[in-house]
């Protein structure tokens, strides 16, 4: 890489929005997307004509893509993107929209993920996820992502000495954070004892290591600071971003993700270091991926996450407030919206608009995404550092 990325001047990220999740929904992804737009219209005073950029992510909108969505939703954007990267889609949408706004291709981009969860959606979306999965994963017990991440968790525990109780501490802290979030689907306090004795799903993954699939939508707006100001929207600036796909393909088991490829450059571009982060919002389909991000994003050296977890408090009033809405593990995983809630929650905390408890004095959020298991690992990774514009 010869060039360093230009700073994200003239970009404002604002209007984090969550359409309250439901465990199951008989509605479609289109309906959930409509709910998100209607709520955004109220908070930001938007009309369809005001939206000149649209970036969309969904697993359940088929046969439509973002193309079908704009007609369905009555939008006429001059910039359109469809991001099929699941858990990395929020960070990637933000990253793309930011450059579009910065360069003038659009001036108000709605980034949105919406997914429904009908009674058998999960089974259907599992059975047609990717060609490699079809050929080389499903025939081996059809355990879905539980089995894929069980293998990663098993290797992680063996190689780095992480114990189930360490993962349990992360899950228990996230559940405690969900306690104040009225939109979280699972708010009942979780004890470490209950975590440890939960039923096994795919050893060593147990019940509370798994997210609950649900229906929901998440959205935010990327625009200029001027437009955000005119609409009275509190906004954040983008300090730095990173994105990588299919990193380290020769690693026999995924023990690190794409973040590790250029994390030093990321912090350098952001002009801060991990100690400056007020709240960390990472993709949490399984706690092993949370642990991996804590290491690869630079919060502790590789292989030392067990010690880091043991000496750190992750609650909202803790040393490193983590997934402060409860994360997907407690709030629910609304399909691709699960890859957006890290962005919306990070924004809310630094814009001081929390759903539940406020992280004290939060100004800087680090948001990290991880998406799409194609064969034996998640392929897409990305991160963004956001700082409140005050």
């Amino acid at each position, binding site marked *: 890489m010869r060039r360093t990325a230009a700073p994200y001047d003239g970009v404002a990220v604002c209007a984090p929005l969550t359409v309250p999740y439901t465990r199951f929904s008989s509605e479609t992804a289109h309906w959930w997307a409509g709910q998100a737009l209607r709520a955004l219209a109220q908070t930001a005073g938007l009309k369809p004509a005001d939206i000149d950029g649209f970036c969309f992510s969904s697993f359940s909108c088929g046969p439509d893509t973002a193309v079908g969505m704009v007609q369905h939703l009555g939008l006429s954007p001059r910039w359109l993107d469809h991001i099929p990267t699941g858990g990395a889609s929020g960070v990637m949408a933000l990253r793309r929209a930011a450059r579009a706004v910065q360069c003038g291709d659009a001036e108000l981009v709605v980034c949105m993920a919406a997914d429904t969860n009908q009674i058998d959606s999960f089974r259907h979306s599992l059975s047609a996820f990717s060609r490699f999965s*079809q050929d080389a994963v499903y025939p081996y*017990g*059809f355990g879905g992502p539980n089995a894929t991440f069980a*293998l990663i968790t098993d290797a992680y525990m063996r190689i780095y000495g992480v114990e189930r109780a360490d993962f349990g501490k992360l899950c228990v802290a996230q559940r405690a954070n969900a306690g104040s979030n009225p939109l979280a689907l699972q708010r009942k306090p979780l004890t470490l004892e209950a975590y440890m004795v939960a039923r096994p799903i795919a050893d060593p993954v147990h019940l509370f290591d798994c997210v609950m699939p649900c229906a929901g939508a998440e959205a935010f707006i990327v625009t200029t600071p001027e437009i955000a100001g005119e609409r009275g929207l509190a906004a954040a600036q983008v300090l730095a971003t990173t994105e990588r796909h299919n990193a380290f393909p020769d690693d026999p088991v995924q023990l690190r993700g794409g973040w590790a490829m250029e994390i030093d450059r990321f912090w350098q571009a952001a002009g801060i270091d991990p100690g400056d982060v007020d709240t960390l919002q990472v993709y949490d389909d399984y706690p092993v991926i949370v642990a991996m991000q804590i290491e690869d994003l630079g919060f502790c050296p590789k292989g030392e996450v067990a010690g880091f977890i043991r000496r750190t408090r992750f609650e909202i009033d803790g040393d490193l407030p983590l997934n402060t809405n409860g994360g997907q593990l407690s709030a629910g995983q609304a399909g691709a919206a699960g890859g957006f809630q890290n962005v919306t929650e990070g924004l809310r905390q630094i814009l001081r608009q929390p759903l539940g408890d406020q992280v004290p004095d939060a100004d800087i959020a680090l948001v990290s995404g991880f998406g799409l298991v194609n064969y034996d690992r998640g392929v897409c990774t990305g991160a963004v550092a956001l700082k409140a514009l005050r």
Partner: protein
Amino acid sequence: MTAPRPREKRDPLARKKARHLSPAARSRAMHAMSARAAQGRFVLQICDSCGEATYPPRDVCPSCWGELAWQDCDNGGIVLCETVIRTSTDLYFRDHMPWRMGKVALEVGPVALVHLHHDLSVGQRAEVRLLLDRGGNAAMFAIPPNGDLDMSDPQLREFLVPIEGRTILVSDARSAIGLAMVKALCEAGAGLVVAGLAPPARTADTEQPAFIAPGVQTVPLDITDQKSLSEALSKIAGPLDIVINTARHPRDGGVSLDGNIVEQRHAFDVAAMGLMRLAQGVAPMLAGRPHGAFVDILSIDALVGSSQRAGFAAAESARLSLLQAFRHEMREAGVRVLSIFTGPVEDEHHQSVPPPKVAPARIAAAAIDALQQGREQSCAGEVANDAMTRWLADPALYTRERNL
């Protein structure tokens, strides 16, 4: 006095257990892998340009974008990690929970998700077999290195067809191949061998030790006769697990020269229409079985014909064609259809054929091995093996040289 054959204990009024198939959808490249696995081979795609091995199957080399070709590879590896899957949304695996699987780093390069044998654990060396799963597609199964396929692992048993304790019909037991088959099945521990003997009955049948041995039941059976077939099937006590079709009618003769039309027509009636009749009769019986299988013994001449035995080869070609379609039909029912190709046999039909010829016992052993090793297609003896190798390498050349 022989011990009574162990019978299945099943409540006759209980609803029959539904048989589900493992997930069946595959890419075209994966089907190419399955076609080779069916022959008992362990193959991976190797890049023509850089020589790197790749898996899962791709359409282009991920290292240099070169062309990929299937090659036989070393199947050793190390187990990297493991899990026991306890929940699934798939009906087949729900029937077989918990399911142990893991990941193996193959010595030739790629890493593969595998079904994991119960004796293997993380860090150990493994041998990876490509076996056909219940849906008929290739799957990697890691077993202890140089270990036999061990039927005591219930997961592994799903990929194989056990003989022990099973009820097996041999369609033509009086022929040299059929007789060898009956003996071999008894030795392999079959529960009951139903030996089909084409009418008229012969005194010699009652003196044949293989037919009066314990665990063998003879039935009059001529697969060219629908009534005979129906009656024979109705005489089989209890469920039928495996059918081995040994019936054939080898005769010399060309097309325009020396072709006895009556003999050649009978060859078709046995090989082609006989197979169809037998298949129609036994398919519903095999479909409900946990390890149902149909084994067909057919001539390697089925591949490209033969100028010396044109009518017979044509009948065997028709048989192969029907067998291919039957395999597809039975895949839906989870029943395995096996082809055992053979060259000239050491029997009364090939008295004037010079060696090499294959001994009937060797054909029987090949059939049993194919069942127990999970192979769909095998060749018994050197002639069949050589022919298959030539045909796979250059079908046009082989067709020409067989008909010179």
